[in-house]
């Protein structure tokens, strides 16, 4: 116990300031209007891996580390789409995940935001469209913000998420 406390004291606070929102990531007009008026101070995110290589998931995990400390901004990941304000979706959307993704979207209460993550989520990436892949997330559900990158850095992800909710500030 003592060693643990000593370690906590020694390491200190490592959280860094969050990035500013970026207009160029926004894909829909509705961001500032009805959606954001409705949401409270806290944002609940349901992450959906719709067929990624798992690289994007590693960076989404990193958002929770002490440096980005996403929970410190009032943003948390939830276990059910029914509890979520936002879907954070990685792609490419495999055909095998298309129905599950659509159902997850339908289960999320209005107003809902969708952030497509990674080159694959934005346009299919290296996997493209094929007998097994539908490519971009926007082929299956409406997308509000797109965050490119392979994978996008945690800072880019945070920027994308904050772009979607910035009107709240």
């Amino acid at each position: 116990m003592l060693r643990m406390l000593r370690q906590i004291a020694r390491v200190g606070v490592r959280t860094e300031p969050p990035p500013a929102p970026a207009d160029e990531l926004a894909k829909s007009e509705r961001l500032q209007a009805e959606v954001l008026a409705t949401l409270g101070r806290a944002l609940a995110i349901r992450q959906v891996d719709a067929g990624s290589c798992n690289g994007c998931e590693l960076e989404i995990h990193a958002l929770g580390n002490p440096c980005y400390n996403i929970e410190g901004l009032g943003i948390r990941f939830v276990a059910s789409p029914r509890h979520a304000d936002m879907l954070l979706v990685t792609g490419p959307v495999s055909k095998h995940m298309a129905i599950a993704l659509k159902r997850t979207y339908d289960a999320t209460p209005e107003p809902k935001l969708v952030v497509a993550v990674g080159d694959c989520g934005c346009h299919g990436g290296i996997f493209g469209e094929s007998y097994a892949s539908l490519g971009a997330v926007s082929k299956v559900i409406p997308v509000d913000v797109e965050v490119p990158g392979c994978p996008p850095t945690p800072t880019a992800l945070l920027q994308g998420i904050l772009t979607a909710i910035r009107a709240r500030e």
Partner: protein
Amino acid sequence: MDLSGLGLSGAKLPSAPPAARVAVRSGQLVPACRLARDQGAHLVALWASDERDRGAGFAVRVVLGDATGFTVLETAVPDLEEARYGDVSAVFPAASRMQRAAFDLVGVASESDDQRPWAWMASWPIDRYPLRRDFEASPKWEPGQEEYEFVRVEGDGVHEIPVGPVHAGTIEPGHFRFQVVGEKVLRLEERFGYAHKGIEKRFESMRAADAFRLAGRVSGDSTVAYAWAYALALEAIAGAAVPPRALWLRALALERERIANHLGDLGALGNDGGFAFGLAQFSRLREEFVRASHAAFGHRFMMDYVTPGGVAQDVEHGRLAAMAAEAKRLAREVATLRGIYDEHDGLQDRFRTCGRVTPELAAQLGLTGLAGRASGQARDLRADFPAAPYDALAVRKCVADGGDVAARVAVRFDELAESLRLVHAIVEGMPGGDVRTALPEAVPDRLGVGQVEGWRGPVLVALDIGAGGAIRRCHPHDPSWANWPVVEHAVIGNIVPDFPLINKSFNLSYSGQDL
């Protein structure tokens, strides 16, 4: 392995580590597997290819390994509706899903009783096979839904819990079907394939020199291992000699990939054991570590760093020295955290005896890689078949025989310490010189195989180049194929709430086996 008892002998195959290629008649496939297993061999991979345009029907290839090396058994199956090849899963149980996927993708069936689909999920017609050379996809094919036949447990008080493909946490898609009594798991059955995005078909539209990028995205957490295995296969076919400095830089990247993943897993395992302190500490170390990778290699996960013929860029001396210093510092930090984990009774209570796979069961089922080493399966390509630079580094194999979550945690801690030592040793021993060589034109119609010990286990890439440097067939094979079925066994008798912890302790790839 010696298959001369069946009158079989092999020819050398372009590969690293070395492997022999043995043609077997259809009837000899299972006896050859049995003979090899009796000599201690394990199954590495199984896949099928369409060779009808070469007048050879369909080829089924089975890679076996033992202490003496690797053998690729190759059997031709005629292009006839009723043609079958021997059921390899009768000898190596892990072959079952590989055989089912081979049927879904190539349309060549084994004699196994289990003919349920694996890669197929009703999103293309069941009588079309994507990896046949005459396959053409239709835009009319809509995502569908199959009725999969799960094995059900009958009896008083038994109920079923379906989980996935969308999970409660940030993890990859897959379906788990639990049969439970109260809290206790009687049976778990996995249904994967949700992340199937047509990687193997995609390879066939790429040029061999470019496809290392796709190989590096088969399973993003193992991007260095896959890109290196791909490069090995292509370099073996082309007969390229990669400059020594490039090999040392590749090993540096591979060990850094192992360290980053082990740091992430150790934090997540602490968290799943109810110890959030562990996640905060290890995820901070991981973040600092991947930032250093970005500074030196230009990418946090070192994607696209290993290229056929060498590496994408040199790393300057100052950065190398910084990495050696970082390794020493990190080793001290990890040792402190290991002490805290070891002393935490609550955490150890969750880890010990949880999700146990005995060494006997591990051997029988073919558990491999990190999880295998935690169940007494002492195999590690870096130590068993050391190629440069590992031949100069004397890699210590980290093995435990507990087979539980605690053992898989302990092996990660041991390997972390060893990889940090290796980073230091690699920086010290780094030779000078070029970091790339121009790749000679690959000789067409040759099969090449590359294997690399990734952080999760051995990653294999088999590559067949056609005319003009185009890829005819590429099969990337993840150790998760072998280990996923073992998770079903590891969970039996445990309680449902321990499943996330057990699953994380294996941390297998969905994308890597769904392809």
